[in-house]
C-alpha cells in the first residue's frame, strides 16, 4: 500500500478490520481467473469495452505537428472511464458477501456509475453528496434516483465533495459488516489507490495492444487529466518503464492564487501531507488545513491526488502540467468542431495540453490523449461558461410549461 513516501493507511481504528478484509479480498480476487473473467465479461458485455483508439486527422493537420489519437473512454456505458472501476469494485463487493455499497460523489459522475453498477449487480446503493453539489448537479441526482439509489445530502462543512467523502467514511465506520465503500478514484487508504488503478489499467492495456495497428507503433507521449487520478493511472501504469512519455494535466483553474486552481504539483501551495486516509501531495495551508480548490470541471476539483501518481512524479516517471479553464474551453470547442467529439471538461484538460504541445513536435511523433469522458453531462456548465442566452430562454420556457401543467 506504499508508493515511495506516499499512500499507506491512515484511517480510524474502527475501520482497520474492514480495510484488512478488503485488502485480502482484493488480492484473492485478482489471483482468481474466474473473477477476472467475470470482470472482463461485464466490462465487455455491459460497458462496451474495448473502447476504440480514434485518429484525429483534422485536428493534427490543423496543429501542424504531432499526430493525435484519442483513447475513447467516453464510449463506456455511463460515458466515462468511471465504469471500469465500479464494475471491479461492485463484483468484489458481491464476492465479499456485501449487500450494500456506499459512495461519495462531487459532480455526480461516480455516484451515477455506482448507482448503475449497483442496479446491475443487485446491490443496495447509498450515495453521499454535498447538499451544495446536489443543488448544482441535480441532473445526476435525478438519474441516481431513477436507478434506485438513495442520495444523502451532506450539509456539514462546505457541503461539497470533501464533506461527502468524510460522511461516507463515517457511514462505513458503522456499516462495514454488510457494506462496501466504493471509492471512485485512485486515492484513500490502501488498497484503494492500487485497486482502482488496477481496475482502470484495462485502459492502458488496450492502448498497448491497439497502438501497433492504429498508430503503427507505440505512442511517443500519453496525456491524461489528473483529478484524483484514476483515468491517468489507468492509461499510464501499463506504460511504466516504456519509452513513452507520460504527461498528467491538472486543473489550472482561473489563476495561480490560493483557491483558484486544483494543482497539486508545480505550486508551493501543495506539499506532502496525510489526510483522508493516505499520504500524498495535498493543497494545504501552513497549518496543514486542506485548501479550497477550483476548476471549470468538477471532476478535477480535488485537493489530493493519487499516491501512485505523486510517487511517479517524484521518480520522474511522469511529467505534470496544467491547463487553465480558458484553454480547456478552447480545446473543447476545437475538438468538437474539427473531429466531431464532445469531450468532458475534465478530458478537455488533456486535450488542451496536447493541443499546446503538438505544434512543437514533428509530424512523425504520435500522441495518445485519454478522452476519459463525454461532455453531454457538462451542458449546464458549458452553456454557462459560453453565456449562451437561448439556453436560459429554453429553461425559462420549460419551467413555465411545468408550472402550468
Amino acid at each position: 500500500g506504499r508508493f515511495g513516501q506516499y499512500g499507506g493507511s491512515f484511517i480510524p481504528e474502527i475501520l482497520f478490520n474492514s480495510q484488512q478484509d478488503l485488502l485480502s479480498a482484493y488480492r484473492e480476487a485478482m489471483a482468481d481467473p474466474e473473477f477476472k473473467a467475470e470482470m472482463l465479461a461485464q466490462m465487455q458485455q455491459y460497458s462496451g469495452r474495448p473502447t476504440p483508439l480514434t485518429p484525429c486527422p483534422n485536428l493534427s493537420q490543423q496543429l501542424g505537428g504531432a499526430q493525435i489519437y484519442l483513447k475513447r473512454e467516453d464510449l463506456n456505458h455511463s460515458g466515462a472511464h468511471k465504469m471500469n472501476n465500479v464494475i471491479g469494485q461492485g463484483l468484489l463487493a458481491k464476492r465479499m458477501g456485501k449487500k450494500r455499497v456506499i459512495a461519495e460523489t462531487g459532480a455526480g459522475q461516480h455516484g451515477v456509475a455506482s448507482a448503475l453498477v449497483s442496479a446491475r449487480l443487485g446491490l443496495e446503493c447509498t450515495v453521499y453528496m454535498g447538499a451544495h453539489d446536489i443543488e448544482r448537479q441535480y441532473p445526476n441526482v435525478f438519474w441516481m434516483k431513477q436507478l434506485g439509489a438513495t442520495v444523502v445530502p451532506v450539509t456539514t462543512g462546505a457541503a461539497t465533495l470533501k464533506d461527502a467523502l468524510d460522511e461516507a467514511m463515517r457511514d462505513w465506520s458503522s456499516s462495514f459488516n454488510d457494506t462496501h465503500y466504493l471509492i471512485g478514484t485512485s486515492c484513500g487508504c490502501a488498497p484503494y489507490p492500487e485497486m482502482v488503478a488496477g481496475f482502470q489499467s484495462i485502459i492502458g492495456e488496450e492502448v498497448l495492444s491497439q497502438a501497433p495497428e492504429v498508430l503503427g507503433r507505440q505512442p511517443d507521449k500519453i496525456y491524461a487529466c489528473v483529478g484524483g487520478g484514476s483515468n491517468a493511472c489507468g492509461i499510464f501504469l501499463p506504460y511504466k518503464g516504456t519509452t513513452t512519455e507520460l504527461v498528467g494535466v491538472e486543473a489550472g483553474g482561473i489563476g495561480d492564487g490560493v483557491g483558484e486552481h486544483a494543482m497539486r504539483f508545480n505550486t508551493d501551495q501543495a506539499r506532502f501531507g496525510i489526510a483522508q486516509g493516505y499520504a500524498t501531495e495535498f493543497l494545504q495551508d501552513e497549518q496543514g488545513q486542506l485548501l479550497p480548490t477550483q476548476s471549470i470541471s468538477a471532476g478535477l476539483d480535488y485537493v489530493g491526488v493519487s499516491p501512485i501518481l505523486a510517487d511517479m512524479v517524484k521518480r520522474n516517471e511522469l511529467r505534470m502540467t496544467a491547463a487553465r479553464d480558458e484553454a480547456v474551453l478552447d480545446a473543447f470547442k476545437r475538438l468538437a468542431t474539427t473531429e466531431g467529439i464532445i469531450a468532458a471538461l475534465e478530458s478537455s484538460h488533456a486535450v488542451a495540453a496536447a493541443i499546446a504541445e503538438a505544434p512543437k513536435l514533428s509530424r512523425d511523433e504520435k500522441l495518445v490523449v485519454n478522452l476519459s469522458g463525454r461532455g453531454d453531462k457538462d451542458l449546464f456548465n458549458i452553456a454557462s461558461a459560453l453565456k449562451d442566452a437561448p439556453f436560459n430562454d429554453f429553461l425559462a420556457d420549460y419551467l413555465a410549461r411545468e408550472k402550468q401543467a
Partner: protein
Amino acid sequence: MSTLQTYIKTQRESRPILLMTHVIYGYPTIKDSLEIMETLLREGTDILEVQFPFSDPVADGPTITNACHVALENAPTLRQCLADINALATRYPDSKVVLMSYLNPMLQFGFEALADTAAPAISGLIIPDLPIEQASFVEPLKAADIAPIWLTIPQMDSARLAQTLSAASGMLYCVSRSGVTGGATAFDAVTDNLDTLKQQTSVPLGVGFGISKPEHITALIGHADIAIVGSALLNAYNEAGLTQLVTRFKSLQTATR
C-alpha cells in the same frame, strides 16, 4: 510511567471514575473556546481534551465536524493554541490537558516542534487517524512526557491489541462501538469488553463515544477509569450557551463522585 498515567492513578484512588471533557479550540471563537476551557477547568474536569480543528475530521460526527469548520474560519494556529493552553493550564494544576487533532496538522507543525512547544501543559495526544503501525511518528513526544493515547475497539484482534497495549502509556481511548462521535451506544455490551481489556493492561481505560447522561457514567464505574464526554457538552453549549454546558457538566460530574 507518564505524568498523565500517574495523575489518573492518583485521582482514581479517591474516585470511582474520572471525567474527561472535550472542547474545540476556536469554536465558536478562540476567545469563547478559551472561556469554555477555563470554565470546565474551574468546575473541576479531571482531564480536558482540547481538539485542534482540522479541515477533514473523518472520525468525528456531524456536531463536532460542523464546529471544527466554524472554528477554522477563525484561522486558529497550533502555535497559538498551545500557548493559550499553556497559559491556562498553569492556572489549573489540579487538572490535566490532552490535545486531540488529526495527523496532518501535527505533521505539518512537526512532532519535534510539538514536543518542544506542547510540554508541559499538554500531557497526552490523541490522533484518531494515526494507526499503531505508524507509532514512530509520535516517538519524539516521549522525551517531553506527552503520552500518545491509542485507541482500541472491541473487534481488535489479539495481536493488534497486544501491539497497542505495549505501546500504550498515559491512558487508552476505548471506542465503545462502531461509528463516529456523537451517536447512541448500548452500554451493556461495552462493559464485558472493558473487563477483558482491564485484565491485560495496567494502563487506565478511558471510554468514549456516546456518553451523554449520568447513568452512562454510572454504568461504566468498575469497568473503566475515565468517562470521556464530547458531543454531549458541545450540544449543550449549542443549545443554550455556557450556562447550559455547566449544568450538563455538573450533572455528569455528580456521577463521578
